[in-house]
């Protein structure tokens, strides 16, 4: 492991007046798994995007295998043996999964102008088999597929290039535990093949575990590079934010701590082919965790409770109000809130302003006589929340799609915090956010818990649910496989035992 596959010298990138990458010097060796970490907005994705040919650089040099490298497009980068799975890009929902794998490169299956879909699907299936990726229905449109499935398709697309250098921008947090392990195996395999990988993830522990070395970015500049085997999470966090960050942002207590009063009672919840016979109560001030493997149905539970999917059976009873929640309108009116996993597609109005996003769920509270909503009220709400959550933005009129992942998530959460909540459903609330925002979200949850708000925390991250929940529901095959209290055998080992 000595020769560099990629070398970057003095690279700069500007977006208007923003200096997104400042004099970056960076290199990746052949057969190296390199980690790239930094706070949201530190310039990690911008750097990878330039390597992948998505953005042109403003100055500096890139050398690939010792030769000048200046990709004009992602296809150009692919032809040079570089491919990327992007953080938020996704797949084309109106096309089948198989076509998505080779989109932009379908001409290789074209004869006399006609694309041979059979050959294309066969080649796509071969890619899934070759890299040991979970099977995906290749003939089905990707529209409506789970976020995890879509990410796997994107991964297959990147791997189908047979890359010498693979760029992964926050892919792990879209994957459940079993598929995350499969990805780790894939990284080991690529390394053994002499291929290189650059990985971005906000999970510091994970990054140390899966990489050989880590480069830390802050405010667009490289602040340090460390060997993974010789560093600690605290050192990485300190380099990231420029100050000391405590290693413990989860709860320190090991006993369930909530009131006896039941807020929500779920009985025999049934969503056809997704979940079956799911029953539980959530109490005032309780954080109820839900975890499971990719087909366990945990994400379907959140949607079903909030009334976003059609239930085939069962009841969701809001005890405090004495009524059954039938749909999302009813849930919203009765002080319930739901923060989905897929924030760009299911949660935020991505092309609307921060102001619109933050004020939308509270419009009924903000309206005056005859339904008139005074602009000063919405502005005040948005400004207060932006300040309270320290959302990094130019002003409240900035569109949400221009924010970094962590700031988007703050908007996503913040709009509910302006309401008088009884129950908050959080589906993977820390997906794609840095340690600073993560710590903030956990402290927010602790605050809400203290106020007596019941929280259902659905997560693919075992340490997260183990760190925050009073009780943990482990699901398997759409059913509740076990419920573990915080004062019982509350360890990864016991939870995995129930999961599998």
């Amino acid at each position, binding site marked *: 492991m000595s020769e560099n596959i990629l070398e970057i010298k003095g690279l700069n990138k500007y977006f208007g007046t923003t200096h997104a990458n400042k004099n970056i010097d960076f290199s990746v060796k052949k057969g190296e798994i390199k980690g790239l970490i930094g706070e949201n907005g530190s310039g990690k994705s911008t750097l990878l995007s330039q390597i992948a040919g*998505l953005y042109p650089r403003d100055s500096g040099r890139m050398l690939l295998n010792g030769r000048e490298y200046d990709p004009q*497009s*992602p*296809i*150009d980068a*692919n032809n040079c043996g570089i491919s990327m799975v*992007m953080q938020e*890009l*996704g*797949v*084309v*929902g*109106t*096309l089948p999964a198989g*076509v998505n794998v080779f*989109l*932009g*490169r*379908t*001409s290789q299956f*074209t004869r006399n*102008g*006609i*694309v041979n*879909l059979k050959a294309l699907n066969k080649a796509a299936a071969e890619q899934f088999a070759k890299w*040991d990726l*979970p*099977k*995906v*229905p290749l003939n*089905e449109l*990707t*529209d*409506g*597929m*789970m976020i*995890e*499935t879509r990410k*796997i398709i994107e991964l297959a697309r990147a791997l189908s290039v047979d890359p010498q250098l693979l760029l992964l921008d926050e892919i792990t947090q879209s994957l459940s535990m*079993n*598929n995350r392990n499969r990805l780790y195996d894939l990284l080991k395999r690529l390394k053994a093949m002499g291929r290189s990988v650059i990985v971005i993830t906000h999970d510091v522990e994970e990054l140390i575990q899966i990489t050989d070395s880590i480069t830390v970015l802050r405010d667009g500049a490289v602040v340090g590079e460390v060997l993974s085997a010789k560093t600690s999470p605290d050192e990485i966090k300190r380099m990231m934010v420029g100050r000391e960050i405590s290693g413990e942002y989860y709860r320190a207590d090991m006993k369930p701590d909530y009131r006896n009063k039941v807020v929500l009672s779920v009985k025999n919840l049934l*969503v*056809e*082919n*997704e979940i079956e016979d799911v029953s539980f109560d959530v109490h005032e001030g309780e954080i109820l965790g839900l975890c499971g*493997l*990719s*087909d366990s149905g945990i994400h379907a539970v959140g949607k079903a409770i909030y009334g976003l*999917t*059609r239930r085939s059976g069962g009841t969701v009873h809001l005890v405090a109000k004495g009524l059954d929640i039938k749909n999302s309108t009813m849930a919203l009116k009765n002080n319930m809130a739901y923060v989905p996993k897929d924030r760009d597609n299911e949660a935020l109005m991505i092309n609307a302003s921060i102001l619109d996003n933050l004020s939308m769920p509270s419009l009924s509270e903000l309206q005056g006589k005859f339904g008139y909503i005074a602009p000063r009220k919405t502005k005040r709400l948005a400004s207060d929340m932006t300040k309270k959550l320290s959302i990094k933005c130019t002003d409240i009129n900035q569109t949400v799609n221009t924010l970094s992942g962590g700031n988007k998530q703050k908007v996503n959460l913040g709009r509910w915090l302006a309401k008088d909540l009884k129950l908050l459903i959080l589906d993977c609330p820390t997906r794609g956010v840095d340690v600073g925002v993560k710590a903030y979200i956990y402290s927010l949850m602790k605050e809400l818990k203290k106020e007596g708000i019941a929280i259902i925390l659905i997560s693919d991250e075992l340490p997260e649910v183990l760190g925050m929940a009073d009780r943990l529901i482990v699901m398997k095959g759409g059913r509740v496989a076990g419920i573990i209290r915080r004062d019982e055998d509350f360890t990864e080992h016991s939870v995995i035992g129930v999961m599998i």
Partner: protein
Amino acid sequence: MQPLQSTQDSIKKINQNPLIFFLMLIAIIAAFAVFFNFVTGGDFLERTNVTVIISHIVWPTFVAWGICFLFACGYTDLSIGAIIVLGSFATCIFGNWYGYPGVMLGGLIVGTLLTFLNFNVFAFTEIPSWIAGISLAMIYEAVAVFLKVGKSTADLIYAEIDKSLRILGRLPWSIILLAAGFVAAYIIYNRTTVGLNIRAIGGNKEVAKALGINIVKTLLWVGLISGIFIGIASIVQESVAGRTTVRTGLTSIYVVFQPLAIVLLAQILQKRINIIIAVPICAVLIYAVFNLLTILGVPSGTLQEAFLGAFLILFGIIGQRGYKGVVK
């Protein structure tokens, strides 16, 4: 190895099989036909009436296929009606001058060139297509009127084609043309790189761009492909109707009302069957309803359209059953 599931797995297998759904659809249409026949005292399935229905679905079906490509890439063009009017007008004028070569080339060249021109405007100016489309429609209508009478007027202008040149409006030629159009549309939409790229742009422009799909080039392809279908539609329309009515004041938008209804209905069905297949089925269905209403003496222009609107909603509800989400 554990397979990943799509949320569509919740739908019953029988509903997922496109062939079964297609057969069910045909059976439903047949049942409707028998019912319509009963209601009209045997007039609906009378041979001449069936011939009329088939002859009348050809040009709207071609327009609907053209619109499918437009919608697939996420664009709306309100000047299509004006292009059909100009195309039909060209078919008529050049047909009367040069016979069949004039019929074929007049409509085809005008339809293709103008739609291609529209997409140049959309791609290079980046003006929202529906705004640019209205402006272009006004220009095309004025041009058609000016060409016929040599001056600008808001009056109705008619152009009639020679009877001997209307072969494509009659069976079996119209049905042969329809079959050829179906094969071409199906292959281009589903089995060519350009077809897949068009759908990629409409599905997620950013992904398409990131994967190296040339957006401008693909949009120009849409203009060309849609233009050919719209050009053929103008030829058939002129062959069926025998004359073109030209008028300014955006009246041409009405021309695409029925093809648009066909596409909307087909979009409802496209979760179950391919939209290119759904288009002729929906065309038959819509024209059957119009035909029934005409036989029953329901006035056109008011009640017939109201019935069509109600029918679309009813069909939408049936087509949507069992599926999550709504048709946009």
